[in-house]
């Protein structure tokens, strides 16, 4: 599901005299329409296709009017491509500032999937201003921010861009401040906690939170997931919107997977009793029941069966992949022992060409290459530039970080770190950091049903770094006392106390966390937990 669907679906567009919708591809458009409108992301590739289309039409002598709408930003490079191809005069270009997409009550997505690769990998900073203007928009909607904390080079840039926009552009603020604290985290120097499949995640930890698992297995796009027929137990696939409107989902999404089945079965039982209520009803009660409750119950029933189906599918898939063993390996790597078993386990996985977990251990780069394809030569260099991979010429092995190559095997698109890559750049750094911030809880029996801290998102093994950072900084209200930590994370931290004219009543409780480069569902779950504990309401835009 694309962001466009969330805003205007096909029927709405048709009401506005849109004839047909096509996907922009490299082939001519067969249509009798006089005007063509392209709504695209500003990619050079797409623009060259459009130029080809226009030139093709010109060659055929067809006269049409073209309009290109770039979203969220119009880039100079795209226009210069148009200019070079001699098409600039035939099209009119426009920009649709589509900055924020509310995915849920407390999550806003910036929908910038290229942010990570462009900014951290290619070093291209073109999205900095876009993110800055999103902040600007939030500022104008919700009032001035009282305090802004941030860490990371890009975070600083984004903040500066935001400040610059405040100065040069008209800002209308709606009065009182509703957001008290803003936290900007970027994923670059934060080499400890880096990407997941589509955005940063936590080092080599598989997700075990329900929402995370759903994402892993079925892929959530724009808050929507498609369940295939074997899940829905019917003969067609179903698209489900996953947010807090879905009552069943909102209760299980942050739960550890082990709790989910219990919860679902309990829910099924309560649902059944609600249905059974109707046995003892007379006509009048029945009427009210049917008009009022029945619909809600039926809805819940449907959702429940969907989620049960999804859970079963996930269980099946995970047991196939020796999920338990995977988790165990991850945990031991986090704690740093039994490394040899871990390595052989990983090697095994490589040889079988299945997703291999991360580790910070020596391995043969050649092996990975031969197993997953040579395109990954580029991936490795990308990893190296990101500081995720280190070469250490010892006798015969190169010590480096592995990639979680889940979809690399299939996609085989090198240089595109859209797959799970994560790593410990500097092994020592991670250990030091984890000690200082107590990222690995030293509790023997971790009770997942009544979790005490955020580590439950990874079965009690690990607290996501970013969440821990947020917790600490908000507690102290500054970066004081955390100098060592910031040094390990390569610095660039800042905090700014803005001039909040009159903090509104709510503002005490609202925190805005901006993840530059995306975040995983596990982190979101951890943050929600933190929010509940501290009585604050977090509110999270992420770039993916």
């Amino acid at each position: 599901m694309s962001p466009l669907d969330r805003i205007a679906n096909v029927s709405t567009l048709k009401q506005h005299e849109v004839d047909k919708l096509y996907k922009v591809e490299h082939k001519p458009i067969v249509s009798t329409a006089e005007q063509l409108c392209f709504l695209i992301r500003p990619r050079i590739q797409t623009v060259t296709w459009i130029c080809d289309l226009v030139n093709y039409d010109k060659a055929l002598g067809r006269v049409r009017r073209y309009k290109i709408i770039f979203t969220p930003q119009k880039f100079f490079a795209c226009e210069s491509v148009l200019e070079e191809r001699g098409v600039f005069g035939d099209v009119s270009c426009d920009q649709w500032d589509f900055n924020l997409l509310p995915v849920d009550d407390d999550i806003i997505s910036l929908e910038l999937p290229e942010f990570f690769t462009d900014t951290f990998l290619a070093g291209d900073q073109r999205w900095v201003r876009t993110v800055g203007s999103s902040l600007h928009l939030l500022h104008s909607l919700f009032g001035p921010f009282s305090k802004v904390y941030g860490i990371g080079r890009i975070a600083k840039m984004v903040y500066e861009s935001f400040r610059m926009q405040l100065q040069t552009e008209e800002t209308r603020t709606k009065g009182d401040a509703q957001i008290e604290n803003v936290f900007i985290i970027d994923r670059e120097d934060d080499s400890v906690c880096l990407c997941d499949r589509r955005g940063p995640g936590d080092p080599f930890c598989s997700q075990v939170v329900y929402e995370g698992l759903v994402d892993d297995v079925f892929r959530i796009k724009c808050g929507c997931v498609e369940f295939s027929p074997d899940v829905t137990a019917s003969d067609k696939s179903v698209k489900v919107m996953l947010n807090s409107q879905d009552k069943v989902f909102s209760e299980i999404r942050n739960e550890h997977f082990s709790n989910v089945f219990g919860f679902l079965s309990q829910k099924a039982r309560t649902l059944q009793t609600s249905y059974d209520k109707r046995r003892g009803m007379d006509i009048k009660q029945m009427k009210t029941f049917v008009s009022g409750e029945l619909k809600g119950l039926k809805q819940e029933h449907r959702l429940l069966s969907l989620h049960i189906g999804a859970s079963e599918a996930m269980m099946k898939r995970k047991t196939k992949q020796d999920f338990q063993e995977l988790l165990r390996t991850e945990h031991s790597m986090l704690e740093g022992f039994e490394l040899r078993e871990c390595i052989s386990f990983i090697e095994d996985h490589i040889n079988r060409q299945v997703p291999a977990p991360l580790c910070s251990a020596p391995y043969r780069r050649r092996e990975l290459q031969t197993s997953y394809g040579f395109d990954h030569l580029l991936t490795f260099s990308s990893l190296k530039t990101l500081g995720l991979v280190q070469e250490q010429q010892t006798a015969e092995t190169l010590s480096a970080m592995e990639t979680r190559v889940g979809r690399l095997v299939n996609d085989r698109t090198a240089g595109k770190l859209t797959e799970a890559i994560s790593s410990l750049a500097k092994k020592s750094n991670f250990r030091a950091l984890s000690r200082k911030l107590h990222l690995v809880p030293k509790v023997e029996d971790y009770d997942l049903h009544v979790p005490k801290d955020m580590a439950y998102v990874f079965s009690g093994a690990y607290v996501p770094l970013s969440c821990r950072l947020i917790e600490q900084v908000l507690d102290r209200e500054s970066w004081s006392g955390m100098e060592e930590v910031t040094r390990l994370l390569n610095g660039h931290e800042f905090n700014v106390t803005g001039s909040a004219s009159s903090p509104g009543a709510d503002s005490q409780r609202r925190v805005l966390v901006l993840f530059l480069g995306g975040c995983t569902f596990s982190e979101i779950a951890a943050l929600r937990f933190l929010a509940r504990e501290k009585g604050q309401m977090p509110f999270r835009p992420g770039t993916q």
Partner: protein
Amino acid sequence: MDTPSSTNISTKLVSTKISTSLVPTHISTRLVSTHISIYTSTGLVSTNFTTKLVSTNISIRLVLTTISIRLVSTNIFTRSVPTNLPVPFRLKWCVFQDFVGDLSPEETVQRLSARKGHVAMERFRSLQDKLLLLDYAVSGNDGNTITAVLIFMKRTLSKELWGEWRTLRYVPETSQSHTATLWCESGCSLIGRLSPQLLQYKEHLNISDENKRRDFLKSCISLPFSAEDAALVQDHFTLLERQIIIEAADSQAEKSGKSNVFQKFPRKASILNMPLITTLYYCVYYHYHESEGSYSSPSNLRQTFKVSEKQFFTSALSALSKLKSWSEVDSLFSSKSWLGFSRKKSPLSYGRVVDILHKNSAPSSVLVQYVALVEDPEQRLALAQKHKCHDIVINTFRDMKDRQMLVQYRDKVERGSDEERKITDLLNNSQIRWKN
């Protein structure tokens, strides 16, 4: 008569020519027309207007002063954005300035960042100005602006200078992936992150025809890669070359219908561009018995690419299991020792072996052999129970002298079967000293 010509106007930029024709004061009523032409550096802005005089002895002020006041108050001829202008007007000021003709590099960059329309950078003709422009762009942190400036510079500088300027200025942490795509032939690599040779290598992904891709890869080998990378690129080329040969031969064989194996197990996909391990698997699958001389023999592949034993073993095992040729699987393991006995050795743990066999639906007679070889007794027990290798379970329990478990297990076994009888015999065997 005030002539506001020189006092408030910076003569450096603008030359004003004011010609007026005025009526001497003693004449009472006359039309006064004033022609004012103001020349600016980019064009002529002229106004003409007339006024009507009413009375005498009034010192006539040039109506021009009103105009000049208007002009002067906006400080048109000064360079900086006037800070007394309210915020919404500052950019409009820049637009005006641009029209009038002079934005400083800093303002140009601001205007570019604000993305309100096109900004002409042509006036920055000197190299110093260009570099200054770049400096401001970089400090502004907006990638789009940086790209715009770089595109401009590339267009207006010669190739050599374009390559050289990098020594004059270091552009930190910026990549111009746009420009890279557009002008890859530029000798200088602005791509901060990927080295130029890798960037070129990356191009291979865009080539769909396999022969062209192979030739392209060949040309890439000579690029200055690091030693490790160079070896990998070489391998990539060699592999693709092989794959093309194998693919051609095999599709021919398949079509002609002569080869049995392709009839029995039709090919699902082409081997081109697959990773090495997959290629190995394929070769084991279809060409296991070929001699080492042939391109498609797995041993040839193994030697050329120095495949590790573990990798080779895993692939071979999977492929042979898929083919269900259990005797071949067996021969993988056996090795003749110098005494002439053959014993089984495996680079993989037997547990893993059993897994692979099981996934390929090996019959239990085959599985039993390998489960028996698992070293760790607990693992062996678990596997045996999972795959219903009753004998092994029974024997393990007997070795562990665990009577209870044996009794429990008897219930799981089929009634009246051999296994049940065996268990009963064991339980009745008074010679065994059970521990429970």
